[in-house]
């Protein structure tokens, strides 16, 4: 049994991710960039086994699942891509269940980490986590989990803009956001407030820090009122002719009306463009 630090004081930093389910296309960029960084970073190695075979598998800290859901009253289903990783709970069962103290929650920023030197691979934490966020590395015999790229976010070898988790750095649609969810003024907290961000399984009371932003309502036949362009009486071709005639008169058309060209102005322009043509020819010869 491992104790949790006191993270209830005001101003407590709660670093975490905000993941936008409205823009996640399921491209796997966050999953593979995570694996790529962490297999050489804090979590090294993230092993693969039977990599060319039939029973191939490996340890990953972030996996993307695609679900097809049919909401009540909707004719069409919706496909939701759902990235899953550690939510860095405020009261994580995976920590309290750890018999060696290998699993711990950092007081400084709330990140939940595994100290590989102390992990005995008993897997109690992965049983305790209701989110399935922990992965056992079969080769190393050690539990792995999202570190929020603890080796990137404070790393002064990176430019400030790159001191973010690898998954956020990679995400092409900008669906992943990183920041302090303990600070109501932070950009991530504001985003959660604006978009109705939600926590997963709040009823279990582990108080996840990460938030998910829900898909925006669709704008299709199921939500929009029918509309159609007006159709005048008589022949559509005749009306189009009238419209084209109107264009000539300079008062019809959906575009800004063409400027009337006066005779004198036209001649001036013609001369100007002839001069320009000569100029451009002589330029070309140089």
């Amino acid at each position, binding site marked *: 049994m491992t104790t949790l630090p006191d993270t209830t004081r005001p101003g407590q930093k709660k670093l975490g991710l905000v993941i936008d389910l409205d823009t996640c296309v399921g491209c796997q960029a966050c999953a593979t960039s995570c694996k790529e960084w962490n297999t*050489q970073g804090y979590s090294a190695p993230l092993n693969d086994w039977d990599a060319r075979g039939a029973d191939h598998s490996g340890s990953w800290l972030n996996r993307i699942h695609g679900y097809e859901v049919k909401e009540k009253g909707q004719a069409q289903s919706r496909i939701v891509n759902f990235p899953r990783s550690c939510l860095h709970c405020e009261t994580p069962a995976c920590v309290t269940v750890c018999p060696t103290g290998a699993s711990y929650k950092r007081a400084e920023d709330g990140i939940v980490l595994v100290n590989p030197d102390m992990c005995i691979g008993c897997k109690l934490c992965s049983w305790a986590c209701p989110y399935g966020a922990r992965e056992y590395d079969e080769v190393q015999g050690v539990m792995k989990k999202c570190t929020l790229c603890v080796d990137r976010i404070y790393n002064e*070898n990176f430019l400030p803009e790159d001191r973010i988790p690898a998954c956020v750095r990679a995400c*092409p649609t900008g669906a992943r956001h990183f920041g302090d969810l303990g600070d109501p003024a932070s950009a991530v907290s504001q985003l959660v407030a604006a978009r109705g961000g939600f926590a997963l399984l709040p009823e279990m009371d582990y108080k996840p820090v990460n938030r998910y932003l829900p898909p925006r309502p669709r704008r299709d036949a199921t939500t929009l009122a029918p509309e159609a362009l007006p159709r005048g009486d008589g022949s559509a071709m005749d009306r189009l002719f009238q419209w084209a005639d109107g264009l000539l008169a300079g008062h019809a058309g959906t575009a800004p009306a*063409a400027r009337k060209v006066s005779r004198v102005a036209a001649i001036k322009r013609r001369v100007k463009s002839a001069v320009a043509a000569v100029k451009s020819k002589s330029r070309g010869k140089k």
Partner: protein
Amino acid sequence: MSAEPHVTRSPKSWDEIKTTTCYMCACRCGIKVYLKDGRVSYIEGNRDHPVNKGVICGKGSSGIKQHYSPARLAKPLLRVGERGKGAFKEIEWDEALTLATSWLSEVRRTDPKRLAFFTGRDQSQGLTGWWATQFGTPNYAAHGGFCSVNMAAAGLYTFGGAFWEFGEPDWKHTKYFMLFGVAEDHGSNPIKMGLGKLKERGAKFVSVNPIRTGYSAIADEWVGIRPGTDGLFVGALIHELLAAQKIDGEYLTRFTNAPWLVVEKPGTAEHGLLARDRDGNTLVWDAATRAPASALSPTATPALMGRFTLKDGRRVATSFTLLAERFLGDDWKPEAVADRCGVPAASIKRIAAELARVAFDEAITLDVPWTDHLGRRHDKMVGRPVSMHGMRGISAHSNGFHTCRMIHILQILLGTIDVPGGYRYKAPYPKPIPPGIKPTGKPGQVKPNTALPGPPLGFVTAPEDLLIDEHGAPQRLDKAFSWDAPMSAHGLMHMVITNAGLRDPYGIDVLFMYMANMSWNSAMNVPDTLKYLTAKDEKTGDYVIPRIIYADSYQSEMVYYADLVLPDTTYLERWDCISLLDRPISEPDGPADSIRQPVVEPDRDVRPFQTVLLDLGARLGLNGMVKEDGSPRYPGGYADYIVNHERTPGVGPLAGFRGADGKAEGKGAPNPDQLKRYIEHGCHWFHELPEHMKYYKHVNRDYLDWAVGFGFLGKADPIIFQLYSEPFQKFRLAAEGHGSIVPPTEHRARIRDHFDPLPFWYAPFEGEMVKAEDFPLHAVTQRPMAMYHSWGSQNDWLRQILGRNWLYMARETAAAKGIADGDWVTVTSHHGQIRAQARLMDGVEPGTVWTWNAIGKRSGAWALDADAPEAKQGFLLNHLISELLPERGGGYRYSNSDPVTGQAAWYDLKVRIERAADQSGEADPQFPTLTGIGRTA
């Protein structure tokens, strides 16, 4: 708190970071490669790069596993047993190149066209096409013919640009984005970044696609269209807009050929051609003078509609009149198309209304003055913030050319090409319509030991440009630029092996391919393709395709069918240029190009293919590849070529850092320090256009002048959009017997019907030729977001994400057949049958089944275990797709392609599905396990 272990805050897990360019798909994003102890340790996106601006995708982040793949080839291989059996011996490079030279020089000395040189996902077509030209064979193309030539050609013949890398939506300003038939990776990061921006701004995103996965999953509106019917949907949108006069009259009048006059003299050789004055200028009807005037007259007031009589008595109509007459017809009413395309009429009407509202009521203006081609100064840039993009789902049908052209017509009617919020060109586009390059390889142009007089590929505008003999017979092995597919600007790679195997139109001596898995997932009809690859001539006992040279980095299924294997490097081990002469990576705001640099040295006996090609060229003594004394012109290999090759004086593969001081852009003398300068600049170069040149480039005088100076255009003439395409009418007239070059009788109806100068819709061929009751379902493939063809699905990490494929189908469709989730099913086409496992879903058009492409692998290939799920449960639809259409009258079999461009019609496939009687087992067909090439550590 002291109990917490110490965690280093600023660890440095790398020794060095080098920039280069990704090759995990065709986006060509900028990457930063981290190196530790001489090995690649991490790859991230380069924030300074114009393409990806720092992001990276699932494929790019798995590049490390591509680079260290056990499937890498390690040494040149020479076949020692029967072809296809995997019996090879390793040989030295000198022996390999000597052998290749002997085979190639014999072909060149006798008949150069008996070399077929085809490349796959080749990003060096600037070099490979030039090499073919210098060799003297017309039988060259890259993979465009089976990828998306319909899309490229439709754009280039209509507005001088195209979707994909020739342009992109104005992500910053667009308010309404329609995405047609885009597989999930195409293009990868730019589309994903763009969608993220649209979502943030609340712009509406409509996806037109039979399948609601990937990008479509996050669309505000999903239009689950039936495959091959997009043209009906788009035509009905055009109908609605015309009927309500919600079109941009000023834009059409000034920037398109809408007001140009078309001769109406049925039955004569000039019917349907554009009326011209004595100087050859096309004409408009000047409403002010009530007389014809030159189409580019700055003073005329062109009438957009009407029929008129010229002084010589000829009747003429504006081309817009003809377009309006077509699309205002009752057969384009939403109600008339709804059942066939599977989109309710109400939805079509609503989308048309939304398009009109955004384009016209929500128009935007940028306070940027600019001057048009007629010298008229405009105070502002008017933008119609509707943008569109399309790709494979439009392209890979036999009606794809006209469908894609129809999408462009819709864009143009709304006035949205290269305006703020619309589609934007990327340099070097716009180009003249079509670009002025003609294909070569006519009779008399292919001669022993002689270069071709021009490039093998180009743009046909009249029957005179075809590569045919006096009997109308094709001159190219793939029958490109013949009556079979006159405007096949990218060739027909999918026909090369079949035609060589059938010696139709002739046999070849050497098949030389690069990076194209043509014995497997890039081939239609795999079983017969394997037959052609191994068939022997009964008389000589030699193979019908006598010699096959194949270059690749990996042990793909194709490697096993080569006689000589030339192992390529990985993308992190070589120089490359992403050139404006090839497939550009420019941005709408200006031209860009980039390089790859070797970030690590190869640890195997492999050589970069481009260097090998230049070496072969020098050994063969090809023009431009040897100096006057016969020594190699580019002894430093591809890097030497990239820097020093000049296509025309001052124009080379890279546009940046030219000239002795490295300060010239576009044109300039070769700069010996050019690559060094690129590396200093993160391996890329970008030239930002000034604000007044960023839009309306097709008619923007300052842009056009600049483009001439930069070498993108020959002349600063405006690019006037061709709603009505005169080259098509020329083919139609030929089919009606006019002119000196007319199609043989048996081809006439097909040419007449499909060379309509205005776009139209016809049912995809396969569906027309088989009975709907026998093959009621459409079957298509998509590329998974995290994979790029067969490369991606062999990657250790990516195959953990997707190690096999399934046949996805709608629940209701499955229920009607008693098929449950996970059941084995048989899938039958007119051509063959496969066994696969079904998965049920809702987000698919009920008449469509689909799967991920290129996941199914042949057992033993790609250094995967023989029982890998890719081989045992994974499958290909390719086995069901015939490369030839069923026989027509007279017994002739056209290729399974678009009749205009020769685009492979992969998505025309029709099938029936039954629950398999035997519910155990594995995917079928299974081919013998490939053996004989070891793994590379």
